[in-house]
């Protein structure tokens, strides 16, 4: 029987790892993710999880140990955030290139400087070119579910890509919410054992992993990572369907909310989606045709679903907790790429907000709405807008 309880997203992530039964966990503590490996080490020490828990001296070593363990052929898990993920950066490319289905739980946190421990998505967004798949959780239940889903997708023979699951620092990592812990037997059925087809060590059948590729082969190796990302789109849908059948909770790459006759659709990720859905209800009561959409899957980028969504909206307002300087938010770039060659497309307006843990309130969303309505009315508008800026101290 599933257990209904209350816990923080960090605990939910640790529980997901326990249910997935990785054989190796290597982790280094960092705010706000420390509780994930702490809880897992407890599971291991109590004999509730049969795994090797490797205490390492840095995040670079944590992910390197995961690469080694995964290349040896076992299910592998770690957790980190912010500077920790940034320190893993070079090894993230290696994990994806070697096609090792490692799963990382990330408590999405801002990057220094100035040093700040609170939530935005700059850490994972900055890793979007590494080849890793990226999922974002709206709440603690999603954090747990998406980690299980991440293992299943990552280990699929057509995918074989490492996957990171992001959940917002403090807003989720340290907030207690109701969570249903699924039945171990069902999880076992859902995930099965990890039986690698290519990447494993067997003295009887020696292979070389992490090879050198000359110019004659490098591009093809990179192309296979592109292809695997493309394959992941279909696999993710299949795994979402299987998950729903087994556990009763429905996931989709883009979750739409009251978009059917919407003129303005607010698009976001993570916990902000909850606020935005609430805001849409509030606008609907006032007779404003607004809708919301949440990207659960950010990599592979769900371009097809974005086009479908775009067909329903006149203005898409992108609410993002990340910034590419001199360009705008990552979603703005990605949505532009998905829509640029479409005959009919909505106007895109980009909003940078909630950086470094600043709360996003209805007042901020009102500011975004006002600019979006200008765009809707055909008036001049700024493409990239910093919302909630304290102009008085600038």
């Amino acid at each position, binding site marked *: 029987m599933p257990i209904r309880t209350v816990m923080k997203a960090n605990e939910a992530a640790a529980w997901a790892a326990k249910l997935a039964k990785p054989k190796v966990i290597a982790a280094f503590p960092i705010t706000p993710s420390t509780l994930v490996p702490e809880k897992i080490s407890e599971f291991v020490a109590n004999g509730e999880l049969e795994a090797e828990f490797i205490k390492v001296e840095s995040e670079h070593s944590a992910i390197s140990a995961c690469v080694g363990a995964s290349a040896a052929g076992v299910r592998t898990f770690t957790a980190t955030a912010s500077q920790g993920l940034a320190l893993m950066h070079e090894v993230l490319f290696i994990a994806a*290139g*070697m*096609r*090792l289905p490692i799963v990382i739980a990330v408590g999405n946190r801002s990057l220094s400087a100035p040093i700040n421990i609170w939530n935005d998505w700059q850490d994972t967004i900055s890793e979007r070119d590494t080849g890793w798949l990226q999922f974002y959780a709206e709440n603690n239940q999603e954090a747990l579910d998406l980690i299980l889903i991440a293992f299943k997708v990552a280990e699929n023979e057509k995918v*074989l890509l490492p996957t990171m699951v992001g959940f917002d620092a403090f807003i989720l990592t340290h907030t207690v919410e109701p969570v249903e812990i699924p039945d171990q037997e069902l999880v076992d059925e859902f995930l099965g054992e990890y039986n690698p087809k*290519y*990447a494993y060590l067997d003295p009887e059948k*020696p*292979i*070389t*992993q992490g*090879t050198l*590729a000359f110019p004659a*082969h490098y591009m*093809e*190796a990179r192309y*296979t990572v592109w292809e*695997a990302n493309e394959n992941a789109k279909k696999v993710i849908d299949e795994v979402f369907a299987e998950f729903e059948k087994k556990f009763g909770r429905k996931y989709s790459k883009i979750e739409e909310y009251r978009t059917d006759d919407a003129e303005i659709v607010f698009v976001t990720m993570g916990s902000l989606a909850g606020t935005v859905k609430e805001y849409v209800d509030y606008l609907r009561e006032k007779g404003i045709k607004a809708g919301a959409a949440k990207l659960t899957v950010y990599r592979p980028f769900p371009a097809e679903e974005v086009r479908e969504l775009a067909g329903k909206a006149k203005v898409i307002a992108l609410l993002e907790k990340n910034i590419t300087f001199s360009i705008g938010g990552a979603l703005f770039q990605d949505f532009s790429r998905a829509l640029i060659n479409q005959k009919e497309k909505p106007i895109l307006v980009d909003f940078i907000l909630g950086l470094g843990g600043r709360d996003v309130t209805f007042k901020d969303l009102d500011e975004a709405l006002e600019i979006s309505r200008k765009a809707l009315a055909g008036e001049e508008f700024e493409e990239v807008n910093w919302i909630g800026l304290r102009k008085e101290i600038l």
Partner: protein
Amino acid sequence: MAESPFKADIERVQKEYSEKMTPGAIARIPGSSVINKTGSWRVFMPEFNRDKCVRCYLCYIYCPEPAIYLDEENYPVFDYDYCKGCGICANECPVDAIVMVRETK
């Protein structure tokens, strides 16, 4: 002239080797690096003087490739398919039986 001890290996690899890309660019055939004839990297090549050689094996032991093997009379044989021309053999040779000469192709 003696045969390279790697001859069988090289033949095996050449028979099994495929360029087909695997996920993770895994090299599935052990020892398959023999298909890379690293001799093309060479600028200087070791020139061997059999008359001076005292058969001490130092060149054979020190060659990092290894691109030196021994013939039936235990004299060194240089495998120019793989010798990168590093010059360690010439440097170690106590009787100057090996000298590095600029290679012209």
